[in-house]
């Protein structure tokens, strides 16, 4: 913007009124734009974050019915929004683990020939307590509590001791 023909600045001297006023107006304008940008960008950024989905079923779910699983077999069940693995060992006991592999989140399965939990994606293996035995998995699978009540097999998350 042209400032007209009068000299506006006196080098070494105090700022003339015109320059100070312009600085003020520029700061006001810039501040206003900045505030507007924040006011419009902030809601958009918050909008982009998906709301937390409530874990359907909460802490405890019915994973299967008694008699549904033969000894030495396993079954994937829904635990909230993630899969769980219910195993009936060869001696007839129930075990429940998270079915999400700790390596890259594939869903694991029970191998009756190995009697181990196996992840097909990268050949990771876990024992029936969920401990990682071989392959790339860095951590054990989370183990859940199993309770047989009447006809139903309940699986619940372990309480922190």
């Amino acid at each position, binding site marked *: 913007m042209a400032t007209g023909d009068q000299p506006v600045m006196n080098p070494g001297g105090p700022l003339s009124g015109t320059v100070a006023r312009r600085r003020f107006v520029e700061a006001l304008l810039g501040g206003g734009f900045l505030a507007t940008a924040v006011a419009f960008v902030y809601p*958009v950024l918050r909008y*982009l974050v998906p709301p937390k989905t409530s874990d359907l079923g909460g802490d405890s779910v019915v994973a299967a019915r008694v008699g549904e699983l033969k000894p030495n077999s396993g079954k994937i069940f829904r635990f909230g929004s993630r899969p769980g693995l219910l195993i009936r060992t060869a001696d007839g006991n129930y075990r429940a683990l998270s079915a999400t592999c700790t390596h890259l989140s594939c869903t694991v399965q029970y191998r009756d020939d190995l009697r181990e939990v196996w992840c097909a994606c990268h050949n990771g293996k876990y024992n029936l307590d969920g401990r990682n035995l071989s392959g790339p998995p860095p951590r054990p699978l989370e183990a859940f509590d199993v309770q047989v009540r009447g006809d139903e097999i309940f699986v619940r998350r372990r309480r922190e001791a």
Partner: protein
Amino acid sequence: MNASRSLRAWLDQRFDWDNLVAPLRKKTVPLHRLSYWYFLGGITFFLFLIQVLTGILLLLYYRPGANEAFESVQYIMTQVQFGWLIRSIHSWSANLMIFTAFAHMFSVLFLKAYRKPHELTWVSGVILLFLVMGFGFSGYLLPWNTLAFFATKVGTEITGQVPLIGKPLMIFLRGGEEVTGATLSRFFGFHVALLPGLATLLLLIHLLLVQRLGISVPPRLEMEWAANPAVKREMKFFPNFLLRELMAWYVALGVLGALAAIFPWNLGVKADPFAPAPAGIKPEWYFLFMFQTLKLLPPKVGFIDGEILGVLAFGLVGLLWLLLPFFERDQPSRSRHWITGVAVFALAYIAGMTVYGHFAK
């Protein structure tokens, strides 16, 4: 400063950048007491950009389908943070955009900016207006609420009135005989894929034409300037007018934000195809003048159905409207003021019928 200069040099070496932006620098905006009407096209464009942006945001959570659409919009409005605001801005901006598009069109008419060589700019603009109304009609159904359901039913039924092509067209629009989830799928496709593609293409043509042909000088001013070049007053488009335009956008953004926050858009009740239509069902305000006209027509005009006559008449008027610039002769002449007369009549008719339709039972 140095970085921007070297970036410009980089671009200039490769794309002949300075030559590319030269027309932008050459373009001028005529200055007169009605110059501020030139902001309207730009504001409409700005609102279109807002629509694209908020539309993409809504697509992150919206799900088409009769069993999910209403619930997903409800989810956006109640669960997603600021979802209500994004949807409200999308709805308000849509309505404001249609309003500014109409205002832009009438300002072009009254300033006689459609004259040679601007005929195709007018044609592309009118097609854009039709597309924008198509956006409105298709987008209105997407939340799948009762009002939208019946508005779509009536709107597509009117299409079905057109002789010969009406019925097949209606079935094409509805994706069947009735308004169902299939209609919703189609309207969703029109709204987020077909219409945006067409509108973007036409918008580019429209802007390119404005860029190439420059801004029309009103005829009376043109004569004055020709008689006495000393009174000619113009403003450079870049950067002088553009900066003023950006301020207008800023004001538009403020108005939009305030409306959306203070009057959030309602969702209504979920559509039930087997429930009776609620009383006082009406289309959106920009269709109201046509809706009200059809309502006023008698059932039979001569040997032809009133509704059919009305639909055909609106089709014909729309076509003539599109071709309006071609009815004006080159030579400016006193007897050619009839187009302005037509424009005054059209504006009065649309405004009058809209208000009447709004208050009519």
